[in-house]
């Protein structure tokens, strides 16, 4: 399951939903807002998401993980809106019988979520300007070609 929220992500409550008496391993990943990106001091971030396709594409990613690593429970929550340094922007939790599949499935899910979900982040920098991550370079190419 994947969900979007504007509220604080609470991994401890979320991981309980993955409990299964047959599960011997749990792997959790969290993306935290950090104070530097590509050499600039970041003050805060704003996330925008297109929910209908975040949900369908997110479920597709989790289903792909389940096909590769059976018997797992997986859940992802992504936050949107304005976030501060240290806030948790995304959480992925996986439980499964053994640790190898818990690690592999968690890694598969976060790697694919990051490049496939229609989610964007805008960074606000110490020097007053702001920018869309991964996007400014694309825009420069565009401007040159117009």
């Amino acid at each position, binding site marked *: 399951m994947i969900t979007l929220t504007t509220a604080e992500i609470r991994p401890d409550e979320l991981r309980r939903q993955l409990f299964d008496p047959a599960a011997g391993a749990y792997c959790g990943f969290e*993306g935290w807002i950090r104070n530097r990106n590509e050499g600039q001091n970041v003050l805060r971030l704003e996330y*925008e*998401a*297109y929910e*209908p*396709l975040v949900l*369908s*594409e997110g479920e597709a990613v989790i289903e792909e993980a389940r096909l590769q690593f059976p018997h797992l429970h997986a859940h992802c929550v*992504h936050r949107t809106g304005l976030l501060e340094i240290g806030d948790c*922007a*995304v959480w992925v939790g996986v439980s499964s019988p053994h640790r190898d599949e818990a690690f592999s499935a968690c890694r598969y899910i*976060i790697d694919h*979520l*990051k*490049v*496939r*979900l*229609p*989610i*964007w*982040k*805008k960074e606000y920098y110490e020097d007053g300007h702001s920018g*869309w*991550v*991964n*996007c400014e*370079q*694309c*825009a420069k*190419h*565009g*401007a*040159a*070609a*117009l």
Partner: protein
Amino acid sequence: MKTITVRYFAMFREHAGLDEETLTLEVATTADVFGATRHRHGSAQPNGHCKVAVNDVMADWDSPVSDGDTVLLFPPVAGG
């Protein structure tokens, strides 16, 4: 000519100054829609992690578009 609703997201929306518009275009594929609206979103090519969806289903840049479709133009994504 086809009637296509185009929706812009994130940086594309900011560059266009609008969320969506309905246009009459001579287009066959999603890439054609991207090219026909580049004065709006500001990008020459759908580089990097740019993505596209048609009627809320993820599509490719060679996916066909039909009269009445809604095409969603996604600038490079950056989740997590």
